[in-house]
């Protein structure tokens, strides 16, 4: 097993798939010789050359449109949007074109493409470079949405996303790029639509995604020391959503907490809460509680940003207070 950082895992997954399949091409801003502004694409330009690893102008509509046009004519493009906030400048292509065209044409066209992007806060970049926007993508029919929390899952799920016949929005959490972890040797391909139970407990289920996963685990550890034992689930893939794993944990424990980085309103936690609230109603021993960033743009000063994002402490406090 190799030890990789999350940023290295991204390049490893792309390289693995580009080696295997010549129809995989990659485009984005500064991804080539520069190796990406987050150094997530180091070495790809050298290995695969400028025809397959293409630097673009600052033209996100052209980047995503090009990926779409290429996907529907035989390629498997990977497009990088440097920061997930920039989905907003090409949202029409993502939400209205890529997501809807298979359905509108009754299946005449396929979009085997991946849009990967650095998502989330914690880097003191301010409100336009720190958003967690998993819910933007989840709400659009026709997209698949993946957000891994560790290097092995990045390799496995990014490979699976590249091989998937549908458009996948792949979020890489900025605050995890430096996190190191073991990645299986050899070709590693995981399955979309599968959540992972990271620890089991009898008192409550905590469901988290991406950067919130290690925090949820740490909170569960604290709570365990206090006698509250929690199941922690890494959702990994919002679409398809592994409701089976989530709902069975809710039924078993009788309590559900969701931990989201995105601001409060219409987050994915609300979706999962509404499913569990409906389908596990008679198993619930107490209210489902969502832990989110407040419904505010993200501030930039250290202390304010730290206060805004769900912290280990806030997660533990919320669970404790609600279970108490």
């Amino acid at each position: 097993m190799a030890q990789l950082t999350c940023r290295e895992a991204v390049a490893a997954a792309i390289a693995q798939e580009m080696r295997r399949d010549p129809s995989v091409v990659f485009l984005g801003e500064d991804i080539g010789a520069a190796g990406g502004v987050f150094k997530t694409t180091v070495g790809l330009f050298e290995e695969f050359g400028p025809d397959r690893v293409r630097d673009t102008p600052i033209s996100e509509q052209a980047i995503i449109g090009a990926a779409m046009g290429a996907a529907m004519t035989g390629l498997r493009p990977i497009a990088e949007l440097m920061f997930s906030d920039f989905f907003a400048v090409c949202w029409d292509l993502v939400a209205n074109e890529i997501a809807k065209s298979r359905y509108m044409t009754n299946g005449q066209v396929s979009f085997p493409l991946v849009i990967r992007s650095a998502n989330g806060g914690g880097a003191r970049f301010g409100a336009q470079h720190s958003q967690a926007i998993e819910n933007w993508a989840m709400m659009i029919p026709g997209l698949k949405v993946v957000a891994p929390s560790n290097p092995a899952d990045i390799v496995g799920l990014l490979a699976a996303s590249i091989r998937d016949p549908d458009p996948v929005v792949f979020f890489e959490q900025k605050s995890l790029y430096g996190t190191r972890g073991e990645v299986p040797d050899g070709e590693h391909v995981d399955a979309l639509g599968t959540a992972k139970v990271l620890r089991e407990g009898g008192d409550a289920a905590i469901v988290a995604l991406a950067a919130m996963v290690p925090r949820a685990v740490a909170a569960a550890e604290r709570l365990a020391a206090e006698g509250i034992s929690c199941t922690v689930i890494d959702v990994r893939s919002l679409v398809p959503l592994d409701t089976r794993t989530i709902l069975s944990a809710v039924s078993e424990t009788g309590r559900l907490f969701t931990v989201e980085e995105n601001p409060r309103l219409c987050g994915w936690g609300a979706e999962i809460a509404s499913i569990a609230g409906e389908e596990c109603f008679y198993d619930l021993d107490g209210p489902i509680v969502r832990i989110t960033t407040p419904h505010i743009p993200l501030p930039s000063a250290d202390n304010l940003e730290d206060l805004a994002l769900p912290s280990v402490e806030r997660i533990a406090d919320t669970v404790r207070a609600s279970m108490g």
Partner: protein
Amino acid sequence: MATEETAGPDLANDDIGEEARLALWRSQLEIRHVEQRAHDLFLQNLVKGTVHLSLGQEAVAAGFAVAMEDGDYTFCTYRGHAHTLARGAPMSGVLGELMGRECGLLAGKGGSMHLTSVEHGAMGSYAIIGAHLPIAMGAAWSAQYRGTSQVSVCFFGDGTTNIGAFHEALNMAKVWSLPVIFVCENNLYMEYTPIGDVTAVEHPAADRAPAYGMESIIVDGNDADAVYRVARTAYDRARSGGGPSLIEAKTYRQCGHSRADPGAYRPDEEVEEWLARDPVPAYRRRLLDFGFAESAVEGIEAEVLAAVDAATETARASPPPPPDILETEVYADGGAAWRN
């Protein structure tokens, strides 16, 4: 503006040739009569939603399509019946889609603004202004990368030249030297607003070409031969690695913007002037001038009309789409399941 040379017609030394001329004629007629039929069916309340006709703009679609090769890609807008038909998509599929029938090209899921027939190279009709320019550019990138000689052709209106995606697509197409042809059908209006009122330059596409390192090209969009010639040059450039072209075809929408619009904002003289330049009778005259037999010319029209009638019957006889397709084809597994 490139126009027909004034020297008398001479079929022997014709750069277009008999076959292509008849193809241009047939294509224009197919579009004309399907569009008129669509209008009739709308008046009978059999076409729902909206429709955007290309009446008056047939020569652009025909000129490009006849010069195209199989395998080339067409990308067009909600005003895309013409371009979809011109690639050979079945009339019954077009009319059926407008009527929301099972036989529709999209089985009723897309509607008139999204006609697509991938098997004919008609890669979709896009209804949000500007989006398909980068998409068409991407298809050209794909052809370039795969090393084929395919060309991607993207049709759009004058109003579309003022949206951001236009700018991004043209720049990137040129930087990557892609085999894509951007065709602006300048019909003088966006929906109800004259293009001149909202555009900083006189020729909304041609005056922008230099901003992307491209040549300014304007063609008489009501002259199928002129369009065909300009198209051939652009295809040659694209296939020989010469990169993208931007072409502005001057033409006119003979009707309103969409079914809801009588087009009352257009000055009478303007409408009259352009009706006098109707591409269909003009091409008929040209064929006769070239010595084509009136019977041949009219025979084609009769065939087309018969085909339109037959397609209308097929579409009318087709049932509404089966309810169980409501939740199919969201994903490539054929379904719509977002959870397990």
